[in-house]
C-alpha cells in the first residue's frame, strides 16, 4: 500500500537569523506563524518561495525543489507579500483572460477590473492580489499578513475564502499573522518564530 507523502517537507532550510528550519506540512493544514517583527518570518516565506539563496532541502509531494523549474515551483508554492505590486495601468490586465474571479466573495465589484490601479484603495489591492495569486491554483499558500489593511468585515471574507480554498484545492497554508484572535480562528497548527527558533505550540493552545 502507498501512503500519500506530505505535501511540503522542509529539511534544514537556512534562513538569515534563524536556526535551520525543519517542517512538514500536509494538505488541508494551516500553519500560523507569529513572532516579533524582525524575527525572520518574511525571510522564511521568501526562502520557501525560493526567492533567496538558501541551503537545505525542500520537497513538494516528495519531489525535491531543484528538480522543479523555479517558475514552476513558485506557481505551486505561491507567496503573497505584504505589499502588492502592479505593473500595468489597468487592473484587469494583471489577470489572465477568462479566469472566473470570485470578486463578490471578497466584497469587490467587477468594475474594479476596468479601473486604473492607482485608483484602488490599499485594501482593494490586497484582496485583488490574493485573487491574482489564487488564480495560479497553488498547492502551498504562503501568506504574509494578508489582512493587514482590511477592516474586520473584509478580513473575515478573506479568511473564509482562504479556508475554503485550503479544503477544496486541497492546499497547505502558511500564514504569518500578528493578530492572536485571527490565529485562533484560522490555524490548525501554530508556531512561534522567536530568537532564531521556530517552535511549534502544542495543539491544545492552538484551539
Amino acid at each position, binding site marked *: 500500500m502507498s501512503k500519500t507523502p506530505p505535501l511540503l517537507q522542509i529539511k534544514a532550510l537556512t534562513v538569515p537569523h534563524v536556526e535551520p528550519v525543519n517542517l512538514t506540512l500536509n494538505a488541508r493544514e494551516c500553519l500560523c506563524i507569529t513572532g516579533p517583527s524582525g524575527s525572520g518570518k518574511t525571510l522564511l516565506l521568501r526562502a520557501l*518561495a*525560493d*526567492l*533567496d*539563496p538558501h541551503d537545505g532541502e525542500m520537497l513538494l509531494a516528495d519531489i525535491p525543489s531543484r528538480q522543479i*523549474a*523555479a*517558475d*514552476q515551483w*513558485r*506557481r505551486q508554492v*505561491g*507567496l*503573497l*507579500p505584504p*505589499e*502588492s*505590486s*502592479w*505593473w500595468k495601468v489597468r487592473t484587469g490586465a494583471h489577470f489572465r483572460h477568462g479566469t472566473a474571479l470570485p470578486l463578490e466573495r471578497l466584497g469587490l465589484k467587477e468594475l474594479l477590473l476596468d479601473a486604473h490601479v492607482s485608483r484602488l484603495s490599499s485594501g482593494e489591492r490586497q484582496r485583488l492580489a490574493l485573487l*491574482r*495569486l489564487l488564480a*495560479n491554483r497553488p498547492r502551498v499558500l504562503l501568506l504574509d499578513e494578508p489582512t493587514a489593511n482590511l477592516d474586520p468585515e473584509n478580513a473575515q471574507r478573506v479568511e473564509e475564502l482562504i479556508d475554503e480554498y485550503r479544503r477544496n484545492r486541497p492546499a497547505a497554508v502558511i500564514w504569518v499573522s500578528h493578530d492572536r484572535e485571527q490565529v485562533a480562528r484560522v490555524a490548525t497548527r501554530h508556531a512561534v518564530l522567536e530568537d532564531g527558533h521556530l517552535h511549534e505550540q502544542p495543539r491544545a493552545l492552538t484551539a
Partner: protein
Amino acid sequence: MITLDTVDLAIAAALVLLLALLSLRLHGGIARQLLVAAVRTAVQLTLIGLVLKALFAHVHPGWVALMSLVMLLVAGREVMARQERGFRGWRGYTVGTFSMFLSSFAVTIFALVVILGSEPWYTPRYAIPLLGMMLGNTMNGVAIAMDRLTQTAWDQRHVIEARLMLGERWDRAIAHYRRQALRSGMIPIINAMAAAGIVSLPGMMTGQILAGAPPVEAVKYQILIMFLISTGTGLGTLAAVGIGSRHLFDGRQRLCLDRLRAP
C-alpha cells in the same frame, strides 16, 4: 590641403588660455580642469599620431591586433566607469567589453572585407580609424543601456519579484525593462542619423572636407560610417542587455541585486 604648423596650433592654444584667464577672473573654478584637459588632448593625440604613423609604416596583423585590444580594453573600462549602479567585480567589466568586442569587431571586419576591400584587409590605415569610430559609438550605446538596465532593475525590484512570485519566468519578468534599456541605448545614434546634415555636420565628414576631399566623396563615407555605427551600436546594445539581464538572475531565477554596486 592646408597643412597646419606649430604657430597655427599655438594660436588656437592661446584661445583656450584666454578662456582659462577669463574663468579665473570670474571665479568660474574650472580654469585648472580646462587647462589639464587641453594639455591631455594635445599629449594624447600627439602620441596616437605617432603610434598611427609607426603602425601605418609597419603593416603587420600583430600590431593591429595589439592596438585593437588596447582600444577595446580602454572602452570596456569607460563603460564600467559610467555606470551608476553597474555589476560588481568581473561581471562589471566583462559584460560591456564582451558585447563591444562582439559587435564592433564583427562589423568592422565585415566592412573591411566586404565593403572597403582593402589589401590586406587589416591595413591599419582603414582598420584602426574604423574600429575607433565603431568602439566610440558602441561604447555610448552599451554604457547607456547597461546603466538603464541595472538602475531600473533596482528601482523596480518589487515589481520584478512580484512577477516571479506569480510564477513568471525571469525573462518575462524583466522583458519590459529590457526593451526600455535597449531603446535608450539606441536613441543617440538614431537621433544622430536623423539630424545628420541638417542640424550637424558629422565630425568625420567635416574632417575629410577640411583635408581636401571632395564633399560628395566625404558624404558617401559618412553614410557608410553612420550605417555601420548604428548596426554596431544596435548589436552591442542587444548583446549587453541580453547578457546583463541574464546576470541579474541566478540559476533558480532569483533576482540577484547583490551583484550590483551601491551607487
